[in-house]
Each structure stands twice: as C-alpha cells, then as structure tokens.
C-alpha cells in the first residue's frame, strides 16, 4: 500500500505536471507516448484511520488541476473502445476531451446527453469492469486500474455542476400520465426522461424517502445522501410528483393504477427483493443479519447517530461479513464505523474474483478489514440465549476452471476451524421481489421471479414496462439506469404512437 498523501500534496503534484506540460494549452502538442507517461491522478481521500471513525465521504474528489491532468492522459482513440464499455454509451472521449481543455460546463452537458445521474455513477459504477476495462491506455499498461480515471472525472464534473442551476428544456404537456414504481436509480432516470418529454409523472415509493438502494443501501461514506436528494429535488422542480409510503402490490395494484387511477402507462422498477441466506445451520440466531437490514438500519434509519435515532443497531465487537461484492464491503466498513473492534470479510474465492469495485476493496483493506479468503462458513454457533458466538468455516483452494473460465473453489477436506464472532452479516445477493409479480398474474416472469420484457422494456402487459433489478436480478446502478432510459423511450413511443 502506498503512503497517504493529503489532498493538498496531490493538488501540488498535479499543478507541477500541468505547468511542466503547459496544460491545457499544450495538450494538442502532446504525443500519445507523452500522454501515456502522465501518472494517473490519485483520488484525494480521508486518511484511513481518521475515516474509519466517521461516516463522512471517503473519496474527496479531484481538484481542478487534477482533472485537467488526468483528462490529458486520454489518447483520443478513433474507435473509442471506452464507449463500448459503458452500459449507457456516454460519449466519453467527448467529455474527457472537453474537461482536458478546462471546458467543464460543456463536458457535463455531454455526459447529461446520456446519463441523468453522473454524480452517483461517478461514485458507484464499477468502472474497471466497464469503460476503464476497454480503455486503450489501460490495455497498454496491462491494468484497467491504470486507464484514464473516467469515473473520477465524471464525478468532478457532476459535483461542480450541481451547485449551478441546470436548465431543462421541457416539452409541452402531452396529457399522458405515467406511474413509476420505486424511486431508485432506474425509476429516477425514467422519470427525468419522461418529464422532459412532457408527460405527467408520479413516482410511488414504499419508504419514507426517495432514492431506493442509494439511500437505504449505499452508505454515506461512499455516496452522500445529499447528492441523491439533489437529484430528487431536480425532478420535483421538473414537475415529477413523489408519493411516499405507498407500496404497489399492497396499497394499490398495477391493474388499479391502469384501470382505476387513470395512468396510461406504468414503469415497474421496484428493485431487488428478499435477501438470500446460505441455508446453513444457525442462520436465524440473534446476531445474524442480512446486509440489507444492517445497512438500512445504519443508513436510512440513521442508527449511526445513536444519541438521536430511535432505530436500534446490534452492538457488535467481532463481525464476519459473508460475500465479496460491494454490499459486503459496505457492510464491513459500516460495522467498523459503528464501533466493531474486528471485522472480517469471509469469501470463498480470492481477491481477484471479488465482484466488488477494486477501489472499495482497497479502501476496506486500508481501514483494517481482515480478509479471510478461500474460506466459507458452514455453520453458525450460538449460546443458550440463541445469540451468535462463533462460526465454523472450511478452507478452500482453487481447482480447475469451470465453464465460465473462473477457477472453481473446492473445499479442503478436514480444514474446519472455528472463528469467535458475535455478529454475522450476509451479503449474498437478493432473490426477486414478489410484491408486484405476486399481485399481477398477467406479468410473464422467469422461474427466478424476474419480469420478462421485450427490447423496448415492455412486459407482457400492454403499457406496463419494467427494468432494473426486478428484470436483471441484482445488478448495478448504471444497468438500472440503462433500463430506465430504454423504458422511457419505449413508454414515450407507446404513448405517442
């Protein structure tokens, strides 16, 4: 791990490079080799030990100098492979090029042509598996993490732009009413696109706050709630109506929305459903939580603020988190911030196979999270009061590659050992949400309960569209947004044909 550098140091280093290369004026004269030689700009962050004791955002965002230097690393490839890596095909060379010239407003406008929520995506997209994976610079350096830091540039532009009024050109009212089920990234994206096109949009949210997974799941230290709220405020300013405490499938059904409440179309984006457990002994002991529950208590319900919040959170000393995705990292790092003395990530494969964003894994390691890799829990052990005291685990090794090309983890016989802990958090994904599909028999679903849609995002019910996790299974914010985009176009075509 590299030594910690303060934001001021990083800014001075960037300034030195900028002056040395005479950026941005000198950019045109730089050859590809010279651009590739510019070191990647490190994300300024809170120091690891300090941040492990607060809930504030870890990554602080680039400075002006850093953005110009980082954007100058772009090789401006003719075929733009980065765009192919982006689920919503943002014109990446376009906005990076504008940023390199210091034309930040223009750069943001380019992003907003394709993505409604850049401040969120810049923070939570797994760039190294998307745009940065296909970036030529990263290929040259044989490491996608060394690609142009596209997400960091995106975040800078979005944060800078959010303090300004964004002008929205709205079409004349069409008189068509659209209901959106769920206010997560997918629903918000669809709402924005449809409101712009002049439709009358109402979002129905079961919780008391809008944002879906971005407010109940993703912690403050990774995505501040104020950023999500800003997007919600923008939508309200565009005339989108938010109805809270309203659960489609229970309070009203899809059929009632369409046939009785006068909606011309519905977009179902109600998100992931029931958390998965491992089906091992002891899973219903006191002290075993789904990451959904643990994170919702800590984030949305503000249990981190013990003095003020009415919602309790379990007092943990030693925590084991099962899983290797972003949610596992979020849960582990939240547990640490809530006062746990020791937090383990227990994962069956190795770090290379972890689905989490690389940056989150690094942040977790820096903060002192212990990684027990090639390890899988087999049993949770409790005391006479039904409270967790330990877990039994089995060691694994990587065997032959399976069909997917990943080496298959195999249990090592006789390698059982116990780990004393008082809390287990399972971060193993979610199965599909049954509330809408269970009350809408007309919807065709897969055997896993996910809604089936056509290429326009429309379900088997005319006028009813769906997207995000209820269609994809557990996916990412950007894929949910991509679905939202597709559905908005589909709904608009459906309503105006």
């Amino acid at each position, binding site marked *: 791990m590299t030594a910690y550098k303060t934001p001021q140091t990083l800014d001075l280093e960037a300034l030195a490079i900028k002056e040395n290369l005479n950026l941005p004026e000198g950019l045109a004269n730089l050859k590809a080799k010279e651009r590739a030689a510019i070191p990647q700009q490190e994300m300024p962050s809170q120091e690891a030990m300090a941040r492990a004791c607060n809930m504030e955002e870890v990554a602080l965002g680039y400075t002006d100098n850093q953005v110009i230097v980082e954007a100058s690393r772009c090789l401006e490839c003719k075929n733009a492979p980065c765009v192919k890596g982006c689920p919503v095909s943002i014109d990446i060379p376009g906005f990076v090029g504008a940023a390199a010239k210091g034309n930040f407003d223009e750069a943001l406008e380019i992003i907003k042509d394709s993505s409604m929520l850049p401040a969120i995506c810049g923070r939570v997209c797994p760039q190294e598996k998307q745009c940065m994976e296909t970036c030529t610079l990263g290929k040259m350096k044989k490491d996608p993490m060394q690609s142009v830091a596209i997400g960091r540039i995106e975040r800078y532009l979005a944060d800078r732009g959010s303090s300004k009024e964004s002008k929205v050109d709205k079409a004349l009212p069409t008189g068509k009413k659209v209901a959106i089920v769920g206010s997560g990234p997918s629903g918000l994206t669809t709402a924005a696109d449809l409101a712009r096109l002049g439709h009358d949009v109402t979002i129905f949210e*079961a*919780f*008391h706050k809008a944002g879906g997974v971005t407010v*109940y799941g993703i912690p403050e230290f990774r995505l501040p709630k104020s950023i999500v709220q800003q997007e919600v405020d923008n939508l309200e300013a565009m005339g989108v109506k938010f109805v*809270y*405490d*309203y*659960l489609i499938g*229970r*309070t*009203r059904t899809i059929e009632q929305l369409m046939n009785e409440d006068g909606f011309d179309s519905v977009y179902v984006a109600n*998100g*992931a*459903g*029931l*958390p998965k*457990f491992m*089906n091992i002994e002891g*899973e*219903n*002991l*006191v*002290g075993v*939580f*789904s990451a*959904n*529950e643990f994170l*919702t*208590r800590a984030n949305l*319900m*503000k249990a981190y*603020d013990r003095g*003020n*919040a*009415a*919602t*309790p*959170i*379990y*007092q943990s000393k030693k925590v084991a988190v099962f899983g290797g995705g972003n949610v596992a990292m979020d849960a582990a790092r939240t547990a640490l911030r809530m006062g746990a003395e020791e937090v383990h990530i227990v994962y069956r494969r190795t770090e290379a196979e972890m689905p989490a964003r690389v940056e989150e894994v690094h942040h977790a390691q820096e903060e002192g999270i212990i990684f027990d890799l090639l390890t899988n829990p087999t049993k949770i052990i409790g005391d006479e*009061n*039904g*409270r967790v005291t330990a877990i039994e685990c089995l060691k694994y090794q990587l065997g032959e590659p399976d069909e997917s090309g990943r080496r298959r983890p195999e249990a090592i016989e006789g390698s059982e050992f116990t780990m004393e802990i008082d809390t287990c958090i399972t971060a193993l994904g*979610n199965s599909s*949400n*049954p*509330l809408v599909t269970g009350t809408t028999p007309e919807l065709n679903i897969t055997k896993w309960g996910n809604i089936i849609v056509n290429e326009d995002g429309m379900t088997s019910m005319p006028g009813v569209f769906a997207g995000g996790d209820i269609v994809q299974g557990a996916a990412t914010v950007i894929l949910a947004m991509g679905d939202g985009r597709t559905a908005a176009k589909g709904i608009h075509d459906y309503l105006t044909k």
Partner: protein
Amino acid sequence: MNKIVRKKQLSSDVFLMEIDAPHIAKSRKAGQFVILMLDDDYGERIPLTIADGDAEKGTITIIFQAVGGTTLQLSTLEEGGSISHVLGPLGTPTHIKKQDAPVICVGGGIGVAPLHPIIQANKEAGNKVITIMGARTEDLLIMEEEVRALSDEVIICTDDGSRGRKALVTEPLKEFCEAEEKPAEVVAIGPPIMMKFCAATTEPYKVPTVVSLNTIMVDGTGMCGGCRVTVGDETKFVCVDGPEFDGHLVDWNSMMSRMSSYKEHEADHRCRMSEKAKELSTQGA
C-alpha cells in the same frame, strides 16, 4: 401525513387511534398490518396491526400498547394531530373459508385488536365463531363489546379471576378441542408465549391453528429479512409470507429470542423517553 381523527385510552397503557388513511382503508383485509413512523429523520419504523377500518370514511383503527420508545411517543399524540408516515396494508391476508365446524378465536391482551377483523371476516363467511379473550386482569381486557357483537359465544379469562374464569386461555381451548364437535380451526393472537401454548394445546387434537406473528421489522416489504422466523424446516419472512403461520410449525424459542435482539437498546431508549416525558409534563405544569 395521516391525521388522527379519534383517540381513546382503553386501559392504563393501551390506546386506540382512528387515523385517516383512505388507500389503506380501501384495500386492507383481515390479518394485515401497517408500519408507521413518527419522525422523518430519526424515527423508527414499527409494525402495528389493523384493528378495524372504514373504507367509506377512509380511516383505519390501530390499537397499541405504549411499551417501547415509539409507542410511548405515539400515545402522546392527540386528536387532530398527525402521524408522519403510515405504510400498508402489509402482509398476506388471512385465508378465510366456510367451515363446517366452529372457528375458535383466541385473543390475549391487545391481541384481540388484530383478531377483530378476523372474527368479522369469519362471520361474513358464515362461520360459527367462539371467541376466548384473555388478559392478566380485568382492566386489560379490550374491545369486549365489539367482540360480543360478532361472536356466537364469548369466554373471558383473567389470570387473577377479576373477570370471567380464573384461568389461562388454554384451559377453555383444551375443552373445545376435546368436545364432540371438534373445532375446524383455531386462530390465536397474543403474546408469543400465549400463542406457543395455544399451539401446544391444539396439536395433540390435530386442530389446525393459525397464529399471527409480530416480529421485529424495518421496511415491511421483504427487503430486510429482519422479521424472519423458522417455520417447519424453512425460513419465512413475517412481512410478506406472514404474518400468519401454522402455529404447530413455528420454532417458538428461536422466534422469541430473535424478538429480544435489541432488549439492551430498548431499555436504554425507554429510559430516555420517560425522562423526556417527565421533562415535558413539568414544562406543561
């Protein structure tokens, strides 16, 4: 915002509130519940059963015991005031069908509140309903009049004998199971320990017994899994699969220990709440 249109104190710490909730009033069915929250930022989400409702008026009735931080705070709200958030109706409605033998409804303490719509629905289905109501003492019996108006027969038990039979509800329940006309079904709602023993009472007689669980939950929509219980060999979510389950299959010990997950926090919170209440009352005086 949901306006409180009527408030009534039923006993020393049990309150009834009729609240404005037109959509819930319209769609709710027997066996369902709501989740409410009092403060936008720092409030807690708590599940409460629906005791009654009026679709035309657009109101639902909740009955609660002021025992935790949030229910204590709720009990201080008055008619004309409002509750920030009410979500519902949640849970799977009670499965009601025409039965050839009597249905025995057992309600313990404020468990009579969620039982009320189930008695109503059974009567609507044309069933003979015998209700057993139990409480520690006479003062804690609620909704007797409503229950009497609907039931074919009502048996009252108190632990101290201050009213009706001096017995636990399981005593008359056992007698009904032994009777010639075996009950078609038993519905038992009350404290976990009462439901556990009702299930244990009916099991030898193989009388189907439905219980309604009120476990800890956060969202109430199936997302958090905090409410899960072991039923048979399976893990079930009270908020979406329940709240009603086969009482003979519920792992009661596991469920009761899960319900005590936050007892340390609750004790502390209650402490702070009563201090706050004291503070407010001295200010008022």
